[in-house]
């Protein structure tokens, strides 16, 4: 029997039923890999449901630095009868299938290229526990214990994880460790030599953390001094505000008075949530909302107001699979275009594209700085994969010398000392950005009327075509200023000279970088450019112009970033080749490689060494 043999390089998938306690067991498994010092990429594939439907948890393990999905499954832990057949068929030839053999596998399960690992989870738990809930919960812990043996993960790591997890609930520690031991022992006694996948601990995770992106975004908001959040519940963004509230309660409650140095309101809808953000930002507080595609649609009206009246505000869009309700618990990068041009009339918005939780933290901070400096909304485009899955990344970092840049806001003294007449929308610095005032600052100076209707430099209503065009032109100038301030793209230069480029962003980054590496092994060099923000800096156009053609790798059907590049940089569309994954699952390196190969075949581009031989 062929067996997949691998050390520190495999994909394991858990098939469970949601609401059965599998999530915490599976998280514990992923964390054991993290603590073994290896790269780990867990993906939770869950239904839009509370209890009883199939859910999967895929964990990729490796030690070469790859953090994207690879594609394929080497080891399946099958505990869900509803999907067992499909799970059985999904495993790669030579892979492993761990199942509950309290009952035999049905006769239809016929594969001679699979290694079966039967663990009688039900029998073990029925024998050990009398409480039905415990029987269910501990099944998950038993299979984790078995994996500890089968994959050579140090048992001590699990003991420590259990102790950390149940800190404060000590009486749960011993039974959990006992359940781990039951699984470990059974596997050792019955499957001593079955599994050829193994973990060899290394020390690759110094200075790293394993955390979800939404937590990073929320912490970024805390460190940016955000005090107001208006929001409406929607998957997959809800945990942004949950995390913000959790850390506010820990870090933002005045120790002497017990009063909150923050205000969070669950609004009646997304319209209202965005209105609250603008009201608070207009009034000098840093404020944000978190939503997903459907909410972005509703917030568009306010985004237009904020663009034209020049009001700051941060919108976190944790994208999910659209259109409409789409697949609410699956991922996509499909709000790129609607976010960039949200609202009627000529509008453009600054967008940031984080790729991992560390960037969520940094870009969340950046978003508050940019929105106040540029006096226009900033949209953070995260997604479900980044927001809700644990992602391995560099630890969050903060420099205590950092001070907030609140942009051009006039103080009482500045208003007092002002000789000339103040105008809210006067462009005094030739950067398209005026000086604003906060209500309540000065008794007689600096008041103005904020409006979404056409206004002149002094914020007075006007229907003058000239004044209108002046203000639209100034907004364009501000857009040029923004190009200098937003995070620059990152260049990944190939080892050898490359005529082909690849552009990617956000959660397409890790799999793209891996695919570039894999393609380089075939002696085809590709330069990479990771886009971090919209508007695009001049470097992006330069990058495209320097290559024969450029792949644009993204997770939507229509090539939204490609459209944006063509439109904004006046690029010949023929020079951009889309690689598009939009099935709701995070993009894999294997898929990108296939697409690259297919394109190169069509273009008859041969690897260097073959070309030399011809």
């Amino acid at each position: 029997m062929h067996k997949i043999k691998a050390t520190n390089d495999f994909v394991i998938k858990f098939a469970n039923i949601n609401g059965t306690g599998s999530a915490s067991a599976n998280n514990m498994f992923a964390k054991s890999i993290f603590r073994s010092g290896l790269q780990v990429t867990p993906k939770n594939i869950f239904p839009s449901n509370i209890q009883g439907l199939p859910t999967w948890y895929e964990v990729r393990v490796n030690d070469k630095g790859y953090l994207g999905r690879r594609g394929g499954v080497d080891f399946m832990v099958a505990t869900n009868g509803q999907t067992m057949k499909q799970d059985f068929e999904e495993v790669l030839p030579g892979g492993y299938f761990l199942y509950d053999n309290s009952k035999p596998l049905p006769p239809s399960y016929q594969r001679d290229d699979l290694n079966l690992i039967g663990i009688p989870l039900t029998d073990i738990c029925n024998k050990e526990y009398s409480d039905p809930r415990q029987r269910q919960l501990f099944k998950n812990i038993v299979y984790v214990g078995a994996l500890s043996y089968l994959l050579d993960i140090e048992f001590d790591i699990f003991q420590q994880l259990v102790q950390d997890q149940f800190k404060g609930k000590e009486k749960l520690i011993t039974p959990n460790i006992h359940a781990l031991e039951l699984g470990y022992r059974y596997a050792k006694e019955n499957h001593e030599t079955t599994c050829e996948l193994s973990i060899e601990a290394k020390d690759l995770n110094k200075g790293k953390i394993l955390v979800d992106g939404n937590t990073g975004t929320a912490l970024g908001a805390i460190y940016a001094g955000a005090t107001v959040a208006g929001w409406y519940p929607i998957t997959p963004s809800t945990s942004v505000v949950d995390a913000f509230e959790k850390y506010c309660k820990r870090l933002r409650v005045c120790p002497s008075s017990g009063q909150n140095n923050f205000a969070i309101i669950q609004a009646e809808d997304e319209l209202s949530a965005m209105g609250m953000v603008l009201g608070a930002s207009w009034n000098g507080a840093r404020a944000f909302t978190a939503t997903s595609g459907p909410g972005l649609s509703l917030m568009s009206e306010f985004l237009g107001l904020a663009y034209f009246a020049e009001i700051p505000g941060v919108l976190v869009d944790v994208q999910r699979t659209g259109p409409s309700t789409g697949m609410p618990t699956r991922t996509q990068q499909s709000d790129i275009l609607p976010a960039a041009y949200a609202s009627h009339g000529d509008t453009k918005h600054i967008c940031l594209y984080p790729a991992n939780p560390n960037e969520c933290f940094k870009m969340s901070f950046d978003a508050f700085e940019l929105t106040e400096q540029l006096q226009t909304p900033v949209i953070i485009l995260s997604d479900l994969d980044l927001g809700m899955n644990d992602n391995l990344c560099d630890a969050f970092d903060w420099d205590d010398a950092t001070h907030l840049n609140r942009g051009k806001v006039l103080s009482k003294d500045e208003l007092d000392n002002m000789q000339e007449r103040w105008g809210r929308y006067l462009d005094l610095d030739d950067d398209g950005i005026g000086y604003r005032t906060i209500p309540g600052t000065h008794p007689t100076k600096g008041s103005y009327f904020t409006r979404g209707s056409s206004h002149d430099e002094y914020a007075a209503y006007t229907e003058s075509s000239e004044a209108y065009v002046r203000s639209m032109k100034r907004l364009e100038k501000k857009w040029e200023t923004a190009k200098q301030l937003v995070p620059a793209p990152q260049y990944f230069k190939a080892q050898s000279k490359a005529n082909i480029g690849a552009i990617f962003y956000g959660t397409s980054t890790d799999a793209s970088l891996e695919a570039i590496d894999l393609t380089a092994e075939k002696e085809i060099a590709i330069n990479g450019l990771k886009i971090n923000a919209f508007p695009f800096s001049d470097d992006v156009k330069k990058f495209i112009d320097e290559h024969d053609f450029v792949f644009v790798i993204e997770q939507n059907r229509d090539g939204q970033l490609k459209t944006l590049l063509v439109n904004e940089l006046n690029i010949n569309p023929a020079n951009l080749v889309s690689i598009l994954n939009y099935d709701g699952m995070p993009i894999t390196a294997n898929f990108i490689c296939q697409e690259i190969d297919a394109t190169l075949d069509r273009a008859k581009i041969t690897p260097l060494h073959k070309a030399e031989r011809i």
Partner: protein
Amino acid sequence: MSYIRPNIRHPQLPVNEIGFTRADYEGALSTLCAGCGHDSISASILQSCFELSIEPHKVAKMSGIGCSSKTPAYFLGNSHGFNSVHGRMPSVATGANLANRDLVYIGVSGDGDTASIGMGQFAHVVRRNLNMVYIVMNNGCYGLTKGQDSATADRGSASKKGVPNPYSSIDLCETAIQLGAGFVARSFSGDKEQLIPLIKAAISHRGFALIDVVSPCVTFNNTAKSTKSYDHVREHVNATGTFDFVPLKEEITTQYEPGKTEEITLHDGSAIRLHKATENLDFNSPRSAMNEIEKHKEKGEILTGLLYLNPQTPDTHELLGTTNKPLNSLTEDALIPGKKVLDTINESFQ
């Protein structure tokens, strides 16, 4: 504009306690139709702020879209104003108030802006008991789009187009009482004697204060068959009584007939002294208020004046437990936890 307001002021204009003249509370010239009820309401807001000696820059004027929502440009020119989007003023006011609880928030809206496109936001700002004055300039029609019926138009009432409105109307006062507003009043733009003390009391009330002001539209809805015309309102108005607003410092000297006069102390120590015309009305009881409003409606009358008052309801900030300081005044020390804390947080993810 074909003319501008003269800039010459009489040197001996009366000043209020903080040294401002009435002119310091004026705004730009109104562009509404001559005779529009809204202009009278603007004048009453201006007069109330002058008499209460509120520093103009301590007021924020919030509005949505429509004729009514334009008015904040025409009063309190030294205050910041925010003319937001249609029906969304409540959320913007909520955010603004969260950022700075120390300002006076005066929201101005219309019947379309509130009872149709903004009904959801209106309902929820009431529920949250945001500390603001919410004035509806209610004319039963859409002015800027040339006179369509609004959701507050009474069934059977006909505007200039002459077609009686077939739909039942939304009573914003009853809605607000049902949703838990602490201060609910109705008034008429033509009755400044009533409106000014109502606005002053509403400003002094902590929490959500609604004043639904019937404000005839002279251009589209001042017809013989309209229930919101000047004539109809004047003929059918019936007040719950008259009342005086007594600022904190004033001593109460006048004696009133017991039973008919009621005094209610507001959160800031000022008081409302009511001289009730309707003996049945218990201002502290939502049920009594609803009952009286409906009873008058049955008779074809419009009940105006204070309808309901509960000065003790906790406002949004109290419900949230927010700091007494305006959130927009908090410094980096209070807001940013620093590197050491972040390092500890990092450890929890390892």
